[in-house]
């Protein structure tokens, strides 16, 4: 009896879904070990997590509020990775988007909300997009590795933002806290439900996911992105403008991450600070991988990741188990997806034929 691996011709959609779900589940199972080591009961801990994430209108609102930027950064990673453009810089692009929104929306323009909101969104999209377009041009011209550049730019951008909010953008009324001047009332997103934090940014995320899904399936651009991502040489030979397509992907990817930043300042904080994002850009990579780079899947994966974070906070308050458990779950589910993708490419075959002598 032996175990063999056979290459798989094509993985069905059901199998892809199963791998994503199983990855999340296995991650939760493994994390049960440290939960027990911390003296908790995994069942009650996970029950508390689920209640903390979905157990009330307030909990649900908090989860969706947390999922909003993750949907957008997840989409940013998904669209870039589809084109084999490795955008690791969503964190920096998010801050640039937020910065642009504050620059435009805190007094520079005086507009009614119907114009102001689109204005800060366009500014944020372009600022985030530019942060990805430049590394892509460097890659095309000089062969510079976009992974390194976008990753390191994250730190550059955050330091730049810190400089601005300690200096020219500092809010004089903030009692010395390092934060920017606030957005005008016209530039703020409305809440979806009164007294709950979920805001219109969630609808922006959902709309972006649907538009991206349509783009991937129905448009010439989606077709060209797929061709360029899967086989650059054949795409170029067939007359698809490879560099131009990559730049469009870069603009969309960085722009989506920028929109995540716009949503955080316009929907949640109303001012720019250096703790605007607890790593939404990096978590977006996990979201995209869990979603198998599917736009609609990114929405579900973002809600899952958000629920883990929100639920773990609440569980931690109730049991005293550290909320770092959430980071463990997220990291492990990424690892599980990577292992799971192996089973999308290969089939395990149990071979119990007796060997004839």
């Amino acid at each position, binding site marked *: 009896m032996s175990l063999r691996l056979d290459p798989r*011709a*094509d993985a069905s959609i059901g199998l892809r879904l199963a791998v994503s779900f199983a990855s999340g589940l296995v991650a939760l199972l493994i994390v049960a070990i440290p939960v027990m080591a911390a003296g908790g009961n995994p069942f009650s801990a996970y029950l508390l997590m689920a209640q903390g994430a979905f157990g009330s209108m307030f909990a649900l609102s908090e989860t969706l509020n947390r999922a909003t930027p993750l949907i957008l950064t997840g989409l940013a990673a998904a669209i870039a990775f589809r084109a084999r453009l490795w955008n690791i810089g969503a964190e920096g692009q998010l801050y640039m988007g937020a910065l642009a929104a504050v620059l435009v929306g805190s007094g520079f323009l005086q507009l009614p909300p119907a114009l102001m909101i689109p204005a800060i969104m366009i500014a944020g999209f372009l600022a985030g997009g530019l942060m990805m377009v430049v590394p892509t041009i460097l890659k095309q011209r000089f062969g510079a590795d976009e992974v390194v550049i976008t990753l390191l730019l994250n730190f550059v951008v955050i330091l730049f933002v810190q400089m601005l909010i300690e200096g020219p953008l500092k809010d004089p009324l903030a009692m010395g806290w390092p934060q920017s001047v606030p957005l005008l009332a016209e530039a703020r997103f409305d809440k979806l439900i009164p007294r709950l934090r979920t805001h219109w940014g969630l609808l922006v995320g959902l709309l972006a996911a649907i538009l991206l899904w349509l783009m991937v399936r*129905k*448009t*010439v*651009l*989606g*077709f*060209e992105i*797929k*061709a360029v991502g*899967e*086989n650059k*040489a*054949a*795409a*170029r*030979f*067939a*007359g*698809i*403008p490879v560099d131009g397509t990559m730049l469009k992907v870069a603009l969309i990817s960085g722009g989506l991450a920028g929109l995540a930043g716009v949503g955080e300042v316009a929907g949640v904080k109303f001012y720019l600070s250096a703790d605007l994002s607890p790593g939404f850009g990096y978590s977006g990579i996990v979201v995209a991988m869990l979603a198998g780079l599917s736009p609609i899947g990114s929405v579900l994966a973002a809600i899952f990741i958000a629920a883990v974070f929100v639920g773990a906070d609440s569980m931690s308050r109730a049991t005293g188990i550290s909320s770092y458990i959430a980071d463990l779950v997220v990291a492990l589910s990424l690892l599980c997806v990577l292992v799971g993708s192996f089973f999308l490419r290969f089939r395990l075959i149990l*071979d119990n*034929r007796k*060997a*004839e*002598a």
Partner: protein
Amino acid sequence: MTKPIPLLSLQNITKRFGTLTANDAISLDLHEGEILALLGENGAGKTTLMNILFGHYVQDEGIVSVLGADGTLAPLPPGSPGAALGAGIGMVHQHFTLAENLSGLDNIRLGTEALLSFGQRQAARSKIANIIAESGLEVDLDRRVDSLTVGEKQRVEILKALYRDARVLILDEPTAVLTPQEAEGLFVVLRRLAANGLGVIFISHKLGEVLAVSHRIMVLRGGRKAGELTTADADRRAIADLMVGKAVAEVKRSRGNPGAPLLSLNKVSLGKPGQHMALHDVSFALKSGEVIGLAGVSGNGQTGIAALISGLAVPDAGTMTLFDQPITRASPRDLVQRGVARMPEDRQHDGVVGTMSVADNIAMEDIRSPGLSRFGLLDRKAMRARAKAAIADYDVRCPGPDAEARLLSGGNVQKLILARVLEREPRIILANQPTRGLDIGAQSEVHRRILAARDRGAAVIVISEDLDELFTLADRFLVIHAGHVVDAGPAETLDRSTIGLLMAGQSPIRETMAS
């Protein structure tokens, strides 16, 4: 030379994949010192049979037996490559299985012993040196495999098999990746190995080389044994008919009818001397209704000519004009829209996106044209309809328009590309190695299509390393050597040896006579 007990014996091997019977009761004997050619079209079951022999697949019926040390045939356990290796069966796959970042020596030893056993390394080296001396498989053992040429990599693969004391050597399409010169060298080695007592199975679909190297030929067709004959009394024509199962229609060519020049190169230079795409001072014109054959040893600048006509490059010096307009910008899409059909040299790598569907690949060059998309939205219905028509017209064998292109065989990928580029009735056709790796049936189909396009008035350039192919197609020969192109004149005034001299870079007497 034939001994009563064979080295290897396959009896009634049958293998089914779902409803497809890939091998149907095939029997085969191989004797010591014999080179057996296994001949058949793509999909005839050659590779399946060898994968069963080597233990990659498990047969549904039948027995594989190998001559044991005691002089009797013993059955080999099915589905065990280890057992096949142990019994002295070595296989050289079409796609090499070498670790690119290790030296030739380490690759040969890989899998048989630990890489950190210092004492054995020297022993291995001297054993391999002996094998090299005996077989003539010259290769630098200390160079990393990724710096070796394709021919050298193949030699490392063969050495790997011999190092494991192979008594039976299976070569799957060994010449598909070799230049004619390298193939010649391989044949010399195989004859020498056979003379030393090795049994060789040589899988191919090229008649010429099979006749040149083998002792015995077995022809497979549609999973069955179609015939078996000794090479000495084999006849080219008869084997071809056995392979295809019907009389092969020889492509009959009439003279072309050259008209106006459609694309011309005037004193074109490209790249730096020594680069494989470099061209120096190249001038020629492609005329309507004429097939130009570009002959030359691979790597002498053919890539440069192809890059120019594909729209991937523009001349560094000199001018290229298309329909009397100079081309100043490298743009494949531009050339496609102006009626240039381009078949890439490496059709799997440059021709198709494997993970996209047949329909997507057929539409790829025209995806922005109004017939296939509107306002940036794909017209999937039109794309599928076009793919369906192409599949029918060009006989692309595939499950349907939605099948992924990577599932197609090489011949069918080429048919897909033909369908893509010829559908628009192009004025100019670049056919780069149009039939490399294709079986006879597919070859004559491609040739027929190219000649039909010429008769319609297209200007055609065929780049090929196969002189037989060029003599089948070309009205006029150009020969390329070290980036220089010589006009050799009309095909009927030429013979193989004249072309051969030009390919070797000897300046011809006829050049001065013709011009």
